[in-house]
């Protein structure tokens, strides 16, 4: 983005309905064009927001953070440069570069890094924080030739990297990835010496633009896609199974088909991170079974569910898989080596991201993997990510069982030996709860989404509560699958958000959740901030049955009505209450 483009983006009027997004940009240099690029990139990413960026005092990064009043700040962006760790590492300071100064500079960097870590850990508990560690080259102050990395220089870099590693483990902090920045803004073109000396702004416009883009993408949480549907022949492996046979397909260096092995390895890593993997292949099921028996395959059949292997149209396979996963097409990527199949599926599901696998194109496969990492990447992995595939498989089996034994579902539910673990607290740090509330569509009270800062401030109210439910039965664990949040006002409970994963349907968990609310928090009545959305039909149906009437905003459920309407519940319930 050029500076003129950024300025023109910022000139565009925002709608009256736009929400405020208040960002604090903390840096020790003059923010100047970085502020402009960051604001413009955020405007592009978040067209429904009015972006306001505040900055602090020149030359006092840590002071700016220590003085920060986090109330009203939706996002904190911290850009650290070498001069913030010790002014002698910046151009504008003339504090001395003698070899004798270097040990003291190293010590000073270490002490400042410690202070920075302390203040960032504190402030990141109050406001979502993005941190960018030094991006500029160190000055030519070391006694070695530029080609040689001396011990003083390495010590300074080590301190910076150690700080970065430590901060990356904090749940409220996202670190700008130096590797991506290296790709789009080469080190040699980042520093603008004239600008630094004349104005105190050290970045070239190109670097400021690249950095602004990365920082904006981290300040704005984007929901990753949930599933990948892949073809097999000439995609997951090289060769046509029906023609080449089980032993004829390959993904090996010596057969020049190694990139398919890399793709397998990548698919397995996605599965391990909780991304749903399905197969849509025109093949004989039996021969595909045999192929997955090969011990040198880098992805296991356990990583994949479901397999749609037959000779029908690929769009039919995709429809079955989406139905099994119970996710929308807009949350899924489809990959197939045949442009015709890609076009057929795209025509049937325009919102599905469809990609032609670039077979025999080494760089193309590499670029595809990088692009998929961007599509599926998430800030943190939770325990539930690791359970997702198992629980989807389990939920599918459940649906089959319940549908085929509808008349005796009580017996099935009883025999499932289910346990629900409730946790009721006022803690805002539950990453899985935040994720569930922001991505669940069907069993959702009102479709309300929370920004990170909104989420944090909700729980600052002493009346707030967060109830989460984790489920397990004899078929396996589903993990944390339900979240209710609201506020207690006397004998009334106001529920602002209630979501439950579609994997947990048909188990009466929703009734147990209500029972838990009545028993734990003791209200006479629960008031629901209900709102119909295009996708929350399952919630509406449940609610209508419970209330005996179509639900409306502000719908109430009394203790007596619940006792009358609740079906028999067979779960073993465990719980912790910290409100």
């Amino acid at each position, binding site marked *: 983005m*050029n*500076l*003129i483009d950024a*300025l*023109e983006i910022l*000139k565009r009027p925002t709608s009256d309905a736009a929400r405020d997004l208040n960002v604090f940009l903390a840096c020790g240099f003059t923010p*100047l*064009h970085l502020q*402009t690029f960051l604001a413009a990139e955020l405007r592009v990413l978040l067209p429904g927001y009015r972006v306001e960026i505040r900055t602090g005092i020149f030359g006092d990064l840590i002071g700016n953070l220590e003085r920060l009043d986090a109330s009203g700040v939706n996002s904190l962006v911290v850009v650290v440069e070498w001069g913030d760790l010790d002014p002698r590492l910046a151009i504008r300071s003339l504090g001395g570069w003698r070899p004798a100064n270097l040990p003291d500079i190293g010590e000073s960097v270490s002490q400042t890094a410690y202070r920075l870590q302390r203040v960032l850990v504190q402030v990141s508990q109050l406001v979502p924080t993005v941190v960018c560690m030094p991006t500029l080259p160190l000055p030519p102050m070391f006694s070695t030739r530029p080609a040689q990395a001396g011990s003083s220089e390495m010590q300074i870099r080590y301190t910076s990297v150690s700080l970065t590693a430590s901060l990356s483990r904090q749940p409220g902090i996202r670190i700008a990835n130096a590797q991506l920045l290296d790709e789009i803004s080469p080190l040699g073109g980042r520093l603008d010496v*004239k*600008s630094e000396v*004349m*104005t105190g*702004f050290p970045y070239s*416009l190109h670097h400021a633009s690249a950095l602004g883009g990365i920082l904006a993408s981290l300040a704005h949480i984007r929901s990753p896609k949930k599933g990948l549907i892949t073809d097999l022949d000439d995609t997951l492996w090289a060769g046509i199974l029906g023609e080449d046979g089980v032993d004829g397909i390959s993904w090996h260096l010596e057969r020049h088909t190694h990139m398919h092995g890399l793709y397998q390895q990548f698919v397995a890593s996605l599965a391990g991170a909780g991304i749903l993997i399905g197969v849509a292949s025109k093949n004989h099921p039996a021969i595909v079974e045999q192929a997955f028996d090969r011990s040198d395959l880098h992805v296991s059949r356990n990583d994949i569910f479901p397999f749609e292997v037959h000779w029908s149209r690929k769009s039919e396979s995709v429809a079955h898989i989406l139905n099994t996963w119970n996710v929308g097409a807009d949350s899924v990527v489809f990959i197939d080596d045949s442009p015709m199949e890609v076009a057929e599926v795209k025509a049937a599901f325009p919102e599905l991201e469809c990609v032609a696998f670039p077979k025999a194109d080494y760089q193309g496969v590499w670029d595809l993997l990088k692009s998929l990492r961007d599509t599926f990447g998430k800030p943190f992995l939770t325990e539930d990510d690791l359970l997702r595939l198992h629980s989807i498989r389990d939920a599918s089996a459940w649906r089959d069982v319940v549908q085929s034994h509808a008349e005796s579902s009580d017996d099935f539910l009883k025999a499932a030996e289910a346990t629900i673990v409730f946790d009721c607290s006022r803690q805002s740090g539950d990453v899985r709860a935040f994720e569930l509330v922001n991505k669940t569509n069907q069993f959702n009270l009102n479709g309300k989404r929370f920004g990170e800062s909104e989420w944090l401030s909700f729980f600052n109210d002493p009346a707030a509560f967060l109830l989460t439910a984790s489920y397990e039965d004899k078929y396996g664990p589903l993990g944390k699958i339900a979240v209710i949040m609201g506020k207690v006002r006397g004998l009334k409970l106001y529920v602002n958000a209630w979501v439950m994963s579609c994997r947990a349907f048909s188990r009466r968990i929703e009734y147990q959740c209500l029972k838990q609310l009545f028993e734990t928090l003791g209200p006479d009545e629960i008031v629901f901030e209900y709102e119909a959305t295009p996708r929350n039909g399952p919630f509406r149906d449940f609610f209508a049955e419970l209330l005996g009437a179509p639900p409306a905003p502000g719908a109430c459920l009394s203790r007596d009505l619940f006792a009358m309407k609740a079906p028999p519940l067979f779960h073993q319930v465990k719980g912790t209450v910290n409100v």
Partner: protein
Amino acid sequence: MSEEEGRLIRCFASVFPGLTSEEIRTTSAESVGAWDSLAAVTLAAVIQQEFKIDIDPLDLPELDSFEAFRTYLRRRRSLGE
């Protein structure tokens, strides 16, 4: 209006969004309240990037109006830069 003048007007408009093209042609640091040091640095940066030139900081104090920038660009062009 020449293509160069149009691009220069666009640069000014991005930094001083309240001005019309006509107003920009006669604008100067004295006539526009928003033309402070920050705006001057931003304007110079936008023009440098747009016209792919490097403005000597010593020239900046003289570049205090639309006309001054236009003359400056013409001179640079005549020098083959």
